[in-house]
């Protein structure tokens, strides 16, 4: 039986969250949480594998206690077991630290897993790093931005769209794949499934100590990135209206802007003024 781990993340439900201008952080308290859309497609991809050839699906997330919601949702969709890594000492982990922690959890809870699926990127930070970094931590092959996967025996065939080329890659288990937003439209969870997710399915909560993560190794493997400043990008455009007879307007335009235009096109342009 295939053993699949799907790593998912809870993200804020709205795309444009208010910023706290002073601290440069998102006001996450103002938004309800939801399962990151690409992660939901990764769960769907796992469920389709399960339906086709049978699999045990473990869903895993790191986050605050409220992140239990996305695990329950994945269980309601049809996953078998949930793992929540929830510890205040792990708060503020960057992608490097997150992949280190997820790797420790997978090694402890699903050491014999064949396939790890992640969403290709999250809607709140869009780094697309955790999946590939996790594969590095676990020393397994990875393919990112995958739109379709097929399994035959120990062989995994993935198709993905990169730089406008569609390529097909093959790799052997164990492997990690990140799922893009192209396919795997996620199913609705049924109400019976939702009820089951609370009454009949297992969910474990892991602390840093369960994973053998101490302040010392966190120092070594902890966040390497520091956020210096977060700001809202402002674009300002000014429109200038040039009026008058067409020939004069063109000349006035070139008088004012030929310097800029020359710089952009890389050669100087001359204008002839009407006399």
């Amino acid at each position, binding site marked *: 039986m295939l053993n699949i781990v799907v790593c998912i993340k809870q993200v804020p439900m709205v795309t444009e969250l208010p910023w706290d201008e002073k601290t440069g952080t998102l006001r996450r308290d103002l938004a309800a949480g939801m399962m990151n859309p690409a992660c939901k497609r990764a769960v769907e991809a796992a469920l389709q594998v399960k339906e086709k050839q049978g699999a045990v699906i473990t869903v895993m997330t790191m986050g605050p206690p409220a992140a239990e919601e996305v695990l329950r949702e994945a269980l309601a969709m049809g996953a078998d077991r949930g793992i929540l890594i929830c510890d205040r000492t792990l708060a503020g982990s960057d992608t490097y630290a997150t992949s280190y922690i997820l790797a420790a959890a997978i090694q402890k809870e699903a050491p014999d897993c064949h396939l790890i699926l992640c969403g290709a990127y999250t809607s709140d930070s869009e780094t697309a790093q955790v999946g590939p970094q996790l594969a590095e931590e676990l020393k397994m092959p990875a393919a990112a931005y995958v739109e379709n996967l097929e399994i035959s025996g120990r062989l995994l065939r993935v198709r993905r769209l990169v730089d406008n080329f569609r390529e097909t890659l093959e790799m052997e288990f164990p492997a990690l794949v990140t799922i893009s937003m192209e396919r795997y439209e996620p199913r609705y969870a049924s109400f019976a499934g*939702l*009820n089951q997710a609370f009454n009949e399915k297992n969910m474990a909560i892991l602390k840093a100590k369960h994973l053998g993560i101490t302040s010392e190794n966190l120092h070594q493997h902890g966040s390497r990135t520091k956020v210096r400043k977060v700001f809202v990008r402002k674009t300002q455009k000014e429109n200038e209206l040039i009026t008058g007879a067409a020939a004069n307007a063109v000349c006035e335009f070139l008088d004012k802007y030929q310097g800029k235009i020359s710089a952009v096109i890389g050669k100087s342009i001359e204008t002839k003024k009407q006399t």
Partner: protein
Amino acid sequence: MQFNPCIKHKLIRNSARHFAETELAPIAAEIDQQRRFPRDVIAKMRALNYFGLQVPKEYGGAALDSISTAIVVEEISRVCAAVGLCVTVHNGVAVYPFLQFANPSQKEIYLPQMASGKMIGAFSLTEANAGSDAGSVETTAVKNGSHYILNGTKIFVTNGGVCDVALIFALTSSPDNKLQSSVFIVESKFPGFLRGELEDLCGMRANPVSSLFFEDCPVPAANLLGKQGDGMKIGLSTLDNGRIGVAAQALGIAQGAMEAAVKYAKERQQFKKPIASQQTIQNYIADMATEIMAARLLLYRACELKDAGGPFGCEASMAKLYCSTIASKVTSLAVQIHGGYGYSKEYDVERYFRDAKVTEIYEGTSEIQRMVIARAILSQSMM
């Protein structure tokens, strides 16, 4: 006492909301105008247990608690009250009496089909001369060997145009020749089961409300629900439950109307600023939000009492009375906030306004709810 929703209730709300916004929001105005029952969406709802919300797992249902069920009806009605009506009538007054009063073989036959939505249910008490006065039913069921022969006309049957099975209240005679009310499980495929034209109603227009005619319709004696003469008991108990459903529906309509009004008030500029900055509009919004919150707490309290297994009829009536009253008020204010546009079919609040009114009428009018509540209060010797 727990006032914050648990994770399960939150997820159930998100799930129903996501479905309603994806599948129903794009068509809600259109099916209202065309009086079209959205069979394609209903088919999707079947697999997701919308038709077996509280049916036990062994019959293929979702076995949800009553607050979860109210939340589902609320969220569907927030987007499309006519489909919310289909769901709440099927679950609240067609399936519920089976759970309460059916014998094992009736449960075995009908519950799996109803829970899967393969059979859509209706509940049929109302007649031309029997509305609030439920005791005045004139439809008759005369025992003839292994069958009862039904004759009569039911009106304003919600889901009437599409139901596969209906619970029909009819008069039977007792051994000592007294007329008594009884309930029959009648399938639409029985001979003599005829549907009338769909009603052309003010609101809830996508729900196929119709009359049902019974012309010498033979119903197997095995399809008597409960015992002969149990009609009043089954009716009153079922209506208590149905009122929770209508309250949830009214609440969902009010919520949808308020959200539309808030959005519009922020966008609409008059006197060079959004109308939301006017104190009058703010007062409207404050009243709407407060009344919706109070209604929700009253409704969930009735649900909790029901699940605790005690009597909940008085609280269900209070919830139904209050939720439907504020639904009419909130939708009217939502139209007012939209001004002239609110009176146009271009905006959803016009539909909410029409849909809300009937929640004060069906499943017991507001006047009947007050009667039920007053009787309960006056019969308590403490007071």
